[in-house]
């Protein structure tokens, strides 16, 4: 029997999702639920002088209007709560769109009407909105969870001085927003001192922890449920104020409260990718050997949080270079706190991969050859292997499929009618963290298995892949296995972010399933009624729901037979802490540019990755499709526009913020090296965020090849190519 792991199994939750059977947080029906709505600030910086809720409270159906004067007092949770403050606790305004009142009413419409009638007066102070508004105010923030903000290796100045060729350029990208289709929702239901939260979160455990801290209640009095998530991309990885406020309001009113953020509120309530600017200087010897990489970046921080979310690991992880200097500066602006956005390692890599393309032209060297010359598998911080040994195979797989060897490097060398054609490439790279997880597996007397883990499926396919892992470890068909997640009553797992879910959770699920299988084998060999009675356990295999003796396949039993004779279900648990690692790959892009009109189309994309053993070729490919298409948005269309005077976001919706549509998506081919990672029981590496990290650079590099125009400021809109 061919292994289940790897097979392109369709999503086990697919039918429920396309028929409306999947219940998301906002779909939760709770008897007697009331509706919450936020009123938000229209200034970015200052204080509330007066707030009049008279008209709002007079709207029929309104139950309560909470302001900073009347809101229950909450504790500001420590990191990783990313906001630095809880709104509605005092009169200070830290950013435009900050909650200034929380209205609860019998219906949503009543709550919305009341929220619009709240009269807030402010003492406003001038706001700084963009990096350009605060020249000279950048500073080196203190070390964060990822370590210090400055990394020096060797002698970068000497490395640059000794370079045969150098590139020194500044690359920039604007504020971006995550835009999951499901806007964030919370339904808070108190039963005595027990709280149930139906939540749209990438981390049920963290939600439980942070809400407990904010409300000063024991963590075990809170249950968080997230059976389905309509996308998160980092925006739902942390816990944001709207969840804390909803839990507090529901407790105060002794009524269940449902809050669903509007699309516009998502733009100020759940993080964004910070405006980013980096000066990248790279030098190389005549043969292309890198002599120095210097990456000095600056990014937006908020007034209340100084954590750096666009990180520069790629400056020292991908390429072996004796002289490296990376420095992550930040500047405080009057904007909401930024956060991780798939991928936080992308922005820095985009600049590096564009600079390497420029360097390849300076050297007269093929861009792929330049990468092959310099890639490394050693982390200069500690000399340890990082898992980048298969980058050459990725470059070959994708490059051959793309036809890269036929490329004439001269800009403007390919034309078709009105259009110039360009080919560009970039390395893609992302680290994945270590996260502890545990799982529970039960085999019932009917021979079916149930597996549970307090992880999340953020749309990437956790339900499906973990069903495969469980079924394969047990030796059962997929349809005998049910996998459940998204409940803090289940054994705990980490957040579904930082590309860590599969590499972490697969380990504990595999261990729990193998322990359950071993327990059933032990029952079988001890059972006089079993054909396997008396056999050595290590000579029994399990396949398709049956147990066989390896050297005499006529001696067999079944899970159903063994467990039903046992008379009660067999249970087991497993725990696992994965080894963190690095996942790399390469993307190759074809663009067509109409130079007269500045119009760019991405027409072809080929990518290859080393993701360890592929768990499911279908969901892995989906991950590539999403990353590629989002990379098109990053390179060409996406840009959160913020008014420089008021700090209000001018396009907080899917009409004004342009994510790519189907017509923007190129033909995409995805390849995988598909070699098991030895540190994982099932061979998996973390993968989720790797595809996208290099795509914007590959597109920009392709545009240069097409037109001879090097655009270093994203997005590359048509006005920049006229």
């Amino acid at each position, binding site marked *: 029997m061919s292994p289940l792991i790897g097979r392109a199994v369709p999503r086990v939750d697919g039918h429920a999702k396309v028929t409306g059977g999947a219940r998301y947080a906002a779909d939760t029906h709770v008897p007697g639920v009331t509706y919450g709505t936020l009123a938000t600030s229209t200034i970015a910086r200052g204080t509330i002088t007066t707030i009049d809720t008279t008209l709002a409270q007079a709207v029929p159906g309104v139950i309560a209007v909470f302001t900073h004067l009347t809101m229950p007092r909450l504790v500001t949770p420590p990191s990783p709560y990313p906001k630095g403050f809880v709104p509605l606790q005092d009169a200070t305004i830290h950013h435009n769109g900050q909650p200034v009142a929380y209205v609860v009413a019998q219906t949503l419409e009543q709550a919305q009407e009341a929220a619009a009638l709240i009269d807030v007066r402010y003492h406003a102070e001038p706001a700084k909105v963009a990096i350009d508004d605060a020249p000279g105010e950048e500073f080196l923030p203190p070390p964060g969870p990822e370590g210090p903000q400055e990394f020096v290796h060797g002698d970068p100045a000497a490395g640059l001085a000794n370079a045969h060729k150098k590139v020194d350029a500044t690359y920039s990208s604007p504020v971006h927003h995550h835009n999951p289709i499901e806007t964030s929702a919370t339904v808070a239901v108190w039963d005595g001192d027990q709280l149930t939260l139906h939540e749209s979160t990438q981390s049920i455990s963290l939600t439980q922890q942070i809400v407990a801290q904010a409300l000063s209640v024991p963590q075990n009095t809170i249950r968080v449920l997230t059976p389905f998530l309509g996308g998160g991309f980092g925006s739902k990885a942390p816990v944001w104020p709207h969840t804390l406020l909803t839990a507090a309001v529901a407790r105060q009113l002794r009524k269940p409260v449902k809050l669903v953020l509007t699309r516009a509120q998502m733009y100020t309530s759940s993080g964004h990718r910070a405006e980013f600017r980096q000066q990248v200087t790279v030098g190389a010897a005549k043969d292309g050997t890198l002599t120095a990489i210097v990456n000095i970046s600056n990014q937006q921080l908020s007034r209340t949080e100084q954590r750096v979310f666009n990180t520069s690991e790629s400056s020292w992880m991908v390429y072996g270079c004796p002289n490296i200097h990376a420095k992550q500066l930040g500047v405080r602006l009057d904007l909401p706190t930024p956060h991780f956005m798939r991928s936080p390692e992308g922005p820095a890599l985009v600049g590096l991969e564009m600079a390497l393309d420029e360097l390849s032209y300076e050297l007269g060297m093929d861009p792929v050859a330049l990468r092959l010359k310099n890639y490394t598998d050693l982390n200069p911080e500690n000399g340890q292997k990082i898992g980048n040994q298969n980058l050459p195979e990725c470059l070959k797989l994708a490059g051959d499929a793309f036809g890269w060897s036929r490329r004439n490097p001269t800009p403007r060398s390919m034309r078709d009618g009105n259009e110039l054609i360009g080919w560009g490439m970039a390395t893609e790279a992302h680290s994945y963290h270590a996260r502890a997880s545990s799982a529970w597996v039960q085999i019932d007397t009917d021979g079916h298995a149930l597996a549970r883990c307090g992880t999340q499926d953020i749309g990437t396919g956790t339900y499906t892949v973990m069903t495969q892992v469980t079924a394969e470890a047990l030796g059962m068909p997929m349809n005998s296995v049910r996998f459940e997640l998204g409940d803090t009553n289940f054994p705990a797992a980490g957040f579904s972010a930082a590309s860590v879910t599969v590499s972490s959770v697969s380990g504990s699920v595999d261990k729990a399933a193998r322990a359950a299988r071993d327990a059933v084998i032990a029952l079988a060999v001890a059972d006089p009624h079993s054909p396997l009675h008396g056999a050595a356990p290590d000579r029994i295999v399990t396949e398709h729901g049956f147990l066989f003796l390896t050297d005499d396949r006529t001696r067999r039993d079944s899970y159903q037979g063994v467990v039903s004779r046992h008379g009660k279900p067999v249970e087991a648990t497993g725990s696992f802490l994965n080894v963190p690692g690095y996942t790399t790959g390469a993307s190759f892009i074809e663009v067509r540019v109409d130079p007269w*009109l500045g*119009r760019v189309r991405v027409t072809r994309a080929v990518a290859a990755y080393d993701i360890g053993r592929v768990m499911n070729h279908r969901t892995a490919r989906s991950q590539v499709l999403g990353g590629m298409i989002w990379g098109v948005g990053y390179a060409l269309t996406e840009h959160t526009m913020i*008014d420089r*005077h*008021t700090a209000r976001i*001018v396009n907080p919706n899917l009409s004004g913020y*342009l994510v790519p549509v189907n*017509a923007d998506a190129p033909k995409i081919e995805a390849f995988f090296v598909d070699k098991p990672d030895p540190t994982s029981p099932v061979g998996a590496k973390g993968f989720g965020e790797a595809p996208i990290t290099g795509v914007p650079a590959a597109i920009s590099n392709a545009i240069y090849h097409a037109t001879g125009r090097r655009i270093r400021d994203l997005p590359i809109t048509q*006005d920049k190519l*006229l």
Partner: protein
Amino acid sequence: MKNFEYARANNPADAVRLVGDRPGATFIAGGTDLLNLMKDGAQTHDRIVDVNGLALTDISHGNGFLRVGALARMADVGAHRAVREKFPVVSQALLASASPQVRNMASIGGNLLQRTRCGYFRDTGSACNKRIPGSGCPAIDGENRGHAVLGVSDHCIAAHPSDLAVSLIAVDAVVLTNGPHGERRIPFGDFHLAPGDTPERENVLTHGELIVGLELPLTPAAAKSQYLKLRDRATFEFAVVSVAAALDLRGRTVNDVRLAFGGIATKPWRSTDAEAVLRGRALDTATIDAAGRAAVHGAIPRAHNAFKIDLVQRALSRVLHELGGVR
């Protein structure tokens, strides 16, 4: 969103009365723009009069013109054979608009009344002279990449968003209405208003006046017409700039021409100056370039939209070269 009353009209007179009676009332057809505006709080109404039951969906031939009912859907008009053959610019403009889902819902009459995509207009937390007269225009010194360079005033620089309207002004369409004061025929060029000092007034309709249809005169120029829309993504996006051109060539000489533009002006923008440059002349690159310069004469660029002045001339040049077979 505030609660409102819903009424369904059985005939045009009924519809006109139901809206005319109540200052806060408005018509609803496809609702693809109105509902968003109401949800965003950019527009409030205490009565919505549903006109979808009216028999105004026909596309029919008259004597020298095509008549299009106001409630015909964008998708149906865009795909209609007579529209494709006799008014290609109109069909192309419709099919370049919005998404298939929106085109299936949205009516022709409603399309002409859609409101600007200016982010300040649609955000109740921002000032906007169009939404609250006298509150100010943050776009003039703000995020104005999408805004107009022609037909602007000190009160408003919001671009008109309709592709269809740009194509209709290029084929000399006539708007047919039925209102409290009877029926009217409004030449398309007179229908929309530049903002001036009353940016809240976007057209000449009076309260309760219902668009019932359009007349599209059959002309040689309309039959040889083209729409080019440039935008920031491949589809489902409003124009950065657009060009509608209708051209009647006799040999190489321009006998008649209509040139209209979208994305660059506060209303569907016809340039008679640019047309005058071409009329009676041989169509070549030099005259095309001169027409482009005439089209943008008097344009007022802002911090982020100056490129439109260049881009629209390039777009016009592309269209006229293609339409006129100029190499």
